[in-house]
């Protein structure tokens, strides 16, 4: 039974990691290519979840909602890039942080104005309801397995996009030398808008997938955003590979910490206290991991090559 529980918890960690990867990939891509710190990335996640919930409520189909979430988040990303972000590339990071923080407030109040303050309802599609058997006799939720599958597919697709396509070549070129790529006649403005919309769409996808598990409400993006920043700091800012590895490390560490630490302390003290101490330490664990990684490799595990 204990091994079954262990396998289940590993899968849970992987699923959390994959979800964080979807967030962190966009964040790290935007930072890597444009040098922009986008605090409003969590808002795009929220936009995805709200678009999915309202489209699913209107059409009765989760899949229509999923398509709507991608479209809405990408569109919101592109509009924000053109109207606001474009003016920030030359400014320093403090201005970027201030402006994108303002965007968080605008998105949150705008969403409240459109949808009200009460959480929306979004359920997982009938096709993915139910559980599957795990080796060892436990059961695992089909939908969470599907999220892991989507995450791996997105990771592969991103890798192919960046390594094998012309667009990917431009993105890599934009990362290493902005002025040169402009001088070579590449339309850097459109490229930036495209990358921003792509990152936004990934965040929207994460929001929609997770919206079916959690509550779709204003402010849902900010806690995830903090974790996504931890992921890219661990993985190395600007690196997709780093984002993937960092996300899995954070996901598994967090889940296993929540699972194992209280049991560990349970050997030393009464269960109630062990729960409190273990729980408190588990919530610090990923930040401890981050601190250790930064102490050993200040650039993160896979620092993006900078020209």
């Amino acid at each position, binding site marked *: *039974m204990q091994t*079954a*529980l262990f396998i*289940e*918890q590993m899968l*849970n*960690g992987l*699923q*959390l990691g994959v979800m964080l990867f979807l967030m962190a990939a966009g964040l790290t891509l935007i930072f890597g290519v444009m040098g922009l710190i986008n605090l409003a990335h969590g808002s795009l996640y929220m936009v995805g979840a709200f678009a999915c919930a309202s489209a699913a409520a209107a059409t009765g189909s989760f899949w229509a909602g999923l398509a709507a979430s991608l479209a809405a988040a990408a569109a919101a990303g592109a509009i924000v890039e053109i109207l606001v972000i474009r003016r920030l590339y030359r400014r320093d990071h403090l201005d970027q942080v201030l402006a994108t923080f303002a965007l968080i407030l605008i998105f*949150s*109040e705008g969403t*409240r104005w459109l949808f009200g*303050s*009460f*959480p*929306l*309802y979004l*359920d*997982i599609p009938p096709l993915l*309801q*139910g*559980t599957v058997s795990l080796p060892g006799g*436990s*059961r695992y*939720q089909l*939908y*969470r397995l599907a999220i892991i599958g989507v995450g791996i597919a997105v990771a592969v697709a991103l890798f192919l996009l960046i390594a094998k396509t012309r667009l990917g070549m431009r993105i890599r070129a934009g990362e290493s030398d902005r002025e040169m790529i402009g001088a070579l006649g590449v339309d850097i403005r459109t490229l930036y808008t495209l990358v921003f919309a792509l990152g936004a769409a990934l965040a929207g996808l994460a929001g929609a997938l*997770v919206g*079916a*598990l*959690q*509550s*779709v*409400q*204003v*402010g*849902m993006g900010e*806690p*995830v955003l903090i974790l996504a920043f931890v992921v890219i700091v661990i993985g190395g800012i600007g690196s997709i590979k780093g984002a993937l590895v960092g996300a899995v490390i954070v996901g598994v560490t967090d*889940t296993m910490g*929540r*699972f194992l630490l*209280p049991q560990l302390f349970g050997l030393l003290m009464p*269960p*109630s206290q062990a*729960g*409190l101490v273990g*729980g*408190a330490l*588990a*919530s610090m664990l990923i930040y401890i991991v981050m601190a250790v990684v930064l102490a050993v490799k200040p650039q993160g595990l896979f620092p993006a090559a900078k020209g």
Partner: protein
Amino acid sequence: MRKLIAASVLALATGVSGGASAEPVKVGLITTLSGGGAGLGIDARDGFLLALKNAGDAAAEIEVVTEDDGQKPELAVQIADKMIQSDQVDILTGIIWSNLAMAVVPGAVAQGKFYISVNAGPSALAGSQCNENYFNVAYQNDNFHEAMGQYANETYRKTFIMAPNYPAGTDSLTGFKRYYKGELAGEIYTQVGQTDYAAEIAQIRASGADSLFIFLPGGMGIAFMKQYAQSGVDIPVIGPGFSFSQDVLPAIGDAALGVKNSASWAKDLDNDASRTFVETFQAEYGRLPSIYAAQAYDTGNLIVSAAARASVKDAAAFRAALKEAGFDSVRGKFSFNTNNHPIQDIYVREVVKEGDVLTNKIIGTAFTDHKDAYAEQCPLK
């Protein structure tokens, strides 16, 4: 004859104005109107304002200033200072969260203002730090959890308990254990604001519990209940009413059906005040009221009743008028204990579906005339 009429008109006029010339009362309503917890604050504000509206002329002299605390303690303190200093309010109310209440209440009552709580009831303010100018119309934080512990004794022997790791969460599990006599299958403290509960659900599945007690307010409860239903674990869930209140039920969906939870009120409670409240709330706002709206409605009516009996400028008289609790509570009967916290019945409710709408129905009474456990530590008599 003319003199007589004039005299009687004059007498009538003074008589009428004698009733309505109650001193103006200024109320500062600080509550959460933005951010993730806004649903609760909006319900509280709407319930409070509805009470004044329904009171009609009796509330004509009551003026309300409303501000949003954004669920941030430092902001709540700033707003309270501003309301006391420049708006010159007589009474503060409206705070939902215990950590904000702990930041605001001691300062406000120290400056001689009244604070009347619509929701937050931290144990410190009920016990050693109680104050003659602090009244709580809602409950002491432990109460609903105690009721669930009492209820669990009827059916369950091995309960798994879970709450977020913050003061109200530890109070919750303490309250539950104060009355629960069975064995605990497990005890977990989760992170505040946690959204993914897969790791906890796996432990619950493996624990062999016969029931699960959770206290997860707001978005945490929505996320947990959906994931719990999806996971296929079928251990019955019980909990305090916060996780299954009218504001979150639509978002949880059918996953909440059948859950037993505790509260001091439900919309099917059989009394006139409650019926009027539910009808007028639906007519005014187009939705069903939650427990937060009900508590704030009672708070509004308490202030109206006290203002009719005494001037707010005469603190001793107004305090006595508040303590009388001379209003028709939606909870039926209501009175204040020595520590200015409620003595009230606490009910067990079940989540049911009425047509397409999920709501709560009372199925039993956990406590009659329940008092909180901290009153003895409060020096007030």
